[in-house]
């Protein structure tokens, strides 16, 4: 794993974690109907593998980069509910402005989780800018999300999730992950996915 000359990538040297394992650990920690907004591709495939029919999950099928923006809307609409956006590094890079919008809106109930495997995995593992240049945690801090951190290992990830569930955010949690393919699939039915999510978070039904 590359480390910048400033040592900015604050993880155990060389450790890459499993996105599926971390997604499972995240879901296992949730007990208050926390909303999860999962971005396109392997991000939402692994959420589907971990907890496909969880009513408070939203699966984004297109609109790459907008999981954070959608999650922000949910968080602002329901300030009493904790909201987690799940993004890949390529997706977040496509919409870095969202970090600023989140910081400026300052929703205490929003957490952005970034699965960083330094690649556009689903299109053939082409490297992203995080492979040799960009530290997304430093980027988020610079954008104004002060409580941004790399998870050093699985236990550290769970500690950061607990902080996100109870503290005053916004938070960003980044994890270096491997390139294992996403293991599940949500239904490819946007209206069904929307309806289930809206019922799950009490906006309908």
């Amino acid at each position, binding site marked *: 794993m590359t480390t910048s000359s400033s040592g900015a990538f604050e993880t155990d040297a060389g450790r890459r974690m499993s996105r599926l394992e971390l997604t499972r650990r995240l879901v296992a920690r949730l007990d208050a109907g926390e909303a999860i*907004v999962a971005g396109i591709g392997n991000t939402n495939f692994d959420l589907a593998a971990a907890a496909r029919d969880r009513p408070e999950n*939203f699966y984004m099928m297109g609109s790459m980069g907008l999981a954070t923006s959608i999650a922000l809307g949910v968080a602002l609409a329901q300030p009493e509910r904790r909201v987690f956006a799940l993004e890949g590094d390529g997706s977040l890079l496509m919409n870095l402005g969202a970090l600023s919008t989140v910081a400026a809106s300052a929703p205490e109930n929003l957490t952005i989780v970034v699965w960083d495997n330094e690649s556009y995995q689903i299109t053939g593992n082409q490297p992203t800018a995080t492979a040799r240049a960009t530290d997304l945690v430093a980027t988020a801090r610079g954008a104004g999300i002060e409580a941004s951190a790399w998870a050093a290992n699985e236990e550290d990830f769970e500690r950061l999730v607990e902080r996100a569930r109870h503290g005053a955010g916004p938070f960003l949690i980044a994890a270096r992950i491997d390139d294992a393919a996403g293991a599940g699939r949500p239904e490819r039915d946007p209206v069904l996915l929307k309806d289930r999510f809206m019922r799950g978070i009490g906006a309908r039904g």
Partner: protein
Amino acid sequence: MTWAETILSCFRDAGVRLVSYVPDKVLIPLIDGVQQDDAFLPVPATREEEAIGIVGGAYMGGVRGAVMMQTSGFGNSINALASLAVPYQFPVLMVISERGVLGEFNPVQTLIARTLRPTLDALGVYHVTLAREDEVEFLAMRTMLQCYRTQAPAALILSPMLTGGKEDVG
């Protein structure tokens, strides 16, 4: 009431609360209106496609929203409409200030105006152009109601015939 006061009144009557936008000079009276009235939750965005996502999320959370942008911002929103708002049936109400027509001074702003309505038509998005003050209340209110009742994005295009358009600052 001015055209902007009318639109703000329609927002209130239609239950619009969250308004996400990238500023444009023509939109100033609407921006000031949502910033100054506690009935609204203004969310400035860095890019217009973000605003589409934010309003979609808010809608799913139970809060009606609208986006405001200039015509060029529509160009930054197309994939968010095509792969999110339209297929997921999010009622995103768009207020788009029209430029590139009727006296435009910047040569690179004229082309996006020509893509606006054909692209909305290609996406199947209902759009209404507001050109006369005495039509604003009926057209705006009915467009908003249709948007929320049919769970489909809709656009209100503010013509320079209504707003006076944008003056050259140079």
